[in-house]
């Protein structure tokens, strides 16, 4: 058993949590959009700028070699975080969106054939819908949507039925919904896809923050996540891909760093993963991501998951008890994201009032318009939790929501 988190010590590591918002304590319940940054990440990035910075992969001087080492150490950490078999399976991208687009462009156009189908689900973020629509329109693949149940879980029978005609070449599906908090049963999703000869990309933008990921145990073919939701900086994310898949894929963007040699007649490509990393990368952000990964590992996913499960149970109980409040999504297996509506107030009005109390939530369609349509909603308010979230903050949210409802009496 892990010891419970020492929240006082954890919160003290996030300088921003000491900020006052219009004189009130910041209650930051928008971590699913982007998480706050611990001192370790801030110090790693500032420290690099102050004492150890140059361009990487090309310099023959001390600074460049040291900076290259620091940046490449992140690849080892990311491989360890996901339990990848090989550090060359870690491709750095700007964010999850870029990782998905890379797969859609390179695997989609280079390996999938026109007439083959890509399966997504009804609870995808726009970033895991639009690239596949673009692929469909450019390349002649089909786009299939696996439905969800009314509780907000993937309908597994309907999912499996999508494979019946043998056309599915790729499944691209969220590992945890940013709106409903539902986890998808990744192992079953992958096993069914593999049984039918299809590869699987998991969008781990939310899941990797809350749960230990093991791409080998899952047998995932591709896995993407973004640094800024994992307490790291913006501008850096990770695409994991099985090595043989990455090697069979053509490059996506051309430029420096991704080549083996260049003449005007032809160029040859660098080995994976560099083949996919054209141009000077987000060096400082990569260094920051390494600090974030190590920080998360030091706390440990067992403690994180236990803390967030307790918060989510508490949040569901407190919010559900508010008259007129409806929690959206009732998945059995869920993480620290709670979307809700209130009978008397639109989500934007809720968010504006909560903001006056110092509480930051998201309101809107959460970049998941088709899911909103499926649920028959225009928008929801969403409270999402991080390592630093406390039970007291959730109590304050619940008490304040009761007052919001009174305000709109």
């Amino acid at each position, binding site marked *: 058993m892990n010891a419970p988190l020492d929240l006082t010590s954890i919160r003290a590591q996030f300088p921003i949590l000491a900020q006052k918002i219009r004189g009130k304590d910041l209650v930051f319940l928008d971590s699913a959009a982007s998480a706050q940054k611990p001192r370790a990440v801030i110090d790693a990035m500032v420290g690099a700028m102050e004492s150890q910075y140059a361009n990487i992969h090309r310099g023959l001087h001390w600074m460049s070699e040291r900076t290259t080492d620091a940046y490449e150490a992140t690849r080892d950490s990311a491989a360890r975080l996901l339990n990848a078999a090989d550090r060359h399976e870690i491709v750095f991208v700007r964010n999850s969106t870029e990782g998905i687009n890379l797969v859609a462009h390179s695997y989609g156009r280079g390996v999938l054939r026109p007439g083959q189908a890509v399966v997504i689900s009804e609870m995808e973020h726009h970033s895991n819908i639009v690239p596949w629509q673009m692929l469909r329109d450019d390349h002649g693949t089909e786009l299939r949507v696996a439905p969800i149940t009314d509780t907000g879980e993937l309908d597994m029978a309907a999912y499996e039925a999508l494979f019946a005609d043998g056309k599915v070449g790729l499944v691209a599906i969220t590992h945890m919904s940013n709106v409903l908090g539902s986890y998808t049963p990744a192992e079953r999703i992958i096993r069914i896809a593999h049984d039918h000869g299809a590869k699987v990309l998991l969008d781990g933008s939310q899941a990797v923050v809350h749960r230990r990921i093991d791409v080998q145990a899952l047998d995932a073919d591709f896995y993407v996540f973004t640094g800024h939701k994992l307490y790291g900086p913006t501008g850096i994310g990770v695409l994991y891909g099985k090595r043989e898949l990455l090697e069979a894929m053509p490059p996506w963007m051309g430029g420096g760093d991704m080549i083996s040699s260049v003449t005007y007649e032809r160029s040859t490509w660098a080995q994976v993963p560099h083949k996919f990393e054209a141009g000077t990368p987000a060096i400082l952000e990569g260094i920051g991501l390494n600090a974030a990964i190590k920080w998360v590992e030091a706390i440990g996913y067992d403690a994180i998951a236990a803390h967030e499960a307790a918060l989510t149970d508490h949040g569901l109980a407190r919010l559900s008890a508010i008259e007129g409040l409806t929690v959206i999504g009732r998945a059995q297996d869920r993480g620290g994201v709670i979307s809700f509506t209130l009978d008397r107030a639109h989500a934007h009005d809720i968010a*504006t009032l909560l903001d006056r109390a110092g509480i930051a939530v998201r309101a809107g369609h959460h970049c998941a318009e088709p899911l909103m349509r499926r649920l028959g909603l225009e928008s929801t308010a969403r409270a999402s939790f991080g390592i630093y979230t406390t039970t007291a903050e959730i109590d304050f949210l619940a008490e304040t929501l009761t*007052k919001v409802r009174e305000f709109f009496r």
Partner: protein
Amino acid sequence: MFEDLRDLYNATILERGRRPRHMRRLDDFDATAKGDNPMCGDRVQVWLKYAGDGSIAATGFDARGCEISKAAADLMVEAVAGRSADDTKALFAAFRTLAQTGSCPDHAAALAPMAPLAAVHEYPSRIKCATLPWHALIAALDGKGVSSSE
């Protein structure tokens, strides 16, 4: 706890947001346009009927969104009644100034119907809620079917 929010959520806004007086589709109309705020999902549609001289004889709207956007649409209907297209566009420019700064002294009289929204300038993320119906209205005047608050 929220008493200081009464500058934005004043009696007029709450009343118009909840029970808009002009929220109806015109069956007999000369122009219509939709407005979307892609960042938050708010949607509005505006219908216009012109008088013989081209001025606005009737305006109807349908809105799905927050109190601010619905109240803004409802008040807009009264502000533009009887105005020409050019006059309406000038009024929108003035309303934007009002929404962004809290006042527009040169057009205070014409903007009187919109004055209950003046406090929205204190809430930068909500200004688009107030201007969205106007974007749809101007798109309808220009014969465009859609507009965006972005």
